[in-house]
């Protein structure tokens, strides 16, 4: 009997499409209103469950609501309706290196970024060597990160994030960071993650990656769930629909 790591229950998320938005008091008063808008439902009544220990892919075309769903899962957006239930600690990897301070050294930024991602200081200290090792920037760890190459910057950010060690990891299109060697390391890390019984939810347009990594997938289109199930049939159905439309 497997339990569900994440339960998404009738989730709906609304955005306002502004035709007129008065973000200054003057225009708000002159026009007598703060905005004219219509509602746009980016997610409509989405429900699914992610079994514990599985790798779950979200697929769909641009604008289908994948990222919105991911941000709801990461607790950055709050849904209008429905709820999301978690089991265990959730970490989201929507962007790497968020909160790095360019003038501070790599070492200081590891501690800063780690605590933004919810790690305790003792935890970071314990994993410090591992993080530095994984990022491959040992030599420059005491340099300010503004002097890092963009690859080094991203690798360091990713190393911190991957070491948060959550029960559920929510990942946006960040797998494509660094050079081939680093990508290899990342892929290995995800395999380890899975072996440790952790759950991963990822969004990707790289169908090859989704196919090789995920057990289950959900296909979203215009904010609605089209199909959900085993990864391969879902991906095939999605790709077929694209070809059919073309």
């Amino acid at each position, binding site marked *: 009997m497997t339990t569900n790591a994440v339960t998404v229950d009738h989730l709906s998320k609304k955005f306002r499409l502004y035709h007129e938005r008065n973000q200054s008091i003057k225009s708000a008063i002159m026009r007598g209103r*703060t905005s004219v808008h219509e509602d746009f439902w980016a997610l409509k009544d989405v429900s699914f469950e992610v079994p514990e220990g599985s790798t779950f892919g979200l697929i769909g075309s641009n604008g289908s609501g994948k990222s919105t769903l991911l941000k709801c899962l990461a607790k*950055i957006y*709050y849904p209008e309706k429905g709820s999301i239930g978690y089991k265990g600690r959730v970490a989201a990897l929507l962007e790497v290196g968020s909160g790095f301070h360019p003038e501070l050294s790599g070492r200081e930024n590891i501690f800063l970024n780690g605590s933004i991602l919810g790690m305790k*200081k003792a935890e970071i200290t314990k994993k410090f060597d591992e993080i530095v090792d994984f990022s491959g920037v040992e030599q420059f760890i005491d340099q*300010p990160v503004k002097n890092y190459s963009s690859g080094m910057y991203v690798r360091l950010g990713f190393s911190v994030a991957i070491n948060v060690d959550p029960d559920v990891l929510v990942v946006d299109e960040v797998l494509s960071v660094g050079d081939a060697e680093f990508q290899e390391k990342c892929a290995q890390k995800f395999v380890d993650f899975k072996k440790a019984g952790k759950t991963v939810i990822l969004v990707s347009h790289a169908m090859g990656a989704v196919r090789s990594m995920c057990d289950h997938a959900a296909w979203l289109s215009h904010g609605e769930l089209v199909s959900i199930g085993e990864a391969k049939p879902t991906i095939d159905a999605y790709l077929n629909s694209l070809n059919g439309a073309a």
Partner: protein
Amino acid sequence: MSYIKEVFASRELLANLTLREIRGQYKRTIFGRLWSLVNPLAAMLTYTLVFRFILRLTPAPGDPSGLDIFALWLLCGLLPWTFFQSVVTTGMGSLLANAGLVQKVYFSRIVLPLSVVGSVGYNWLFEMGVLLVALVLFGAFVWPFLPLVLVVMVLLAIFASGLSLALAVANIHFRDTQYFVSIIMQIWMYLTPIIYPISLVQDQSDAHGGLFGTNITIMNIYQLNPLERFVSVFRNLLYDNRWPPVNDVLLCAVWAAAAFAIGLWIFRKNEKGLAEAL
């Protein structure tokens, strides 16, 4: 309750963000942290020149300390004010300044404005330390009053964070807030007895008596300003070296609690929509 727990759980993050501000602030400057002293010193010199030597303001000597140095008298009010002002203005912009973070990572959002209080407060402690040394050198006996000075400093910090929480949210919805507040702050400073003694206001108030046939005097209205009490308590303790009236300290505490409660309530109400509204 669960919210308090959550904020308490992010205390390490709060400490780290505060450190980020403190460490990052004076990087790549030759004088480093000394810059934090330059602003109050420059203000002190300007105001002393203009108000002491040109306009000939003479605040009463400290009673019972006997201090009669305009610059020190000024700083006892000016340092708390500059702290208050920069907490409110920087804290107000803290959500916007960290928009990237708010939109990408989940954490307790309140740590952003609170970390500003921490980093500005750190500079303030440093400045107050220097002022303390100066006061002692010129013969003030401040030691027994220090614990209460710290308490009032904390109260002022709470008051300032309450305002900055509310304004940070307002600034997300209306970007005018920041420009508006910078004007308000200028007026507010001159409505607070920082660079002139309150006795001058008392004189005017007595000269005019009750306004519009009522018992309300100019002084009554003037004293509605919460900063007026704070400044007077700081001067009592640091410059005069005597215990301030209990009512004054209580009033400061009430203002601090009220401002923080309202600020927190507004912040909590809007917290969930922040990532979208930015």
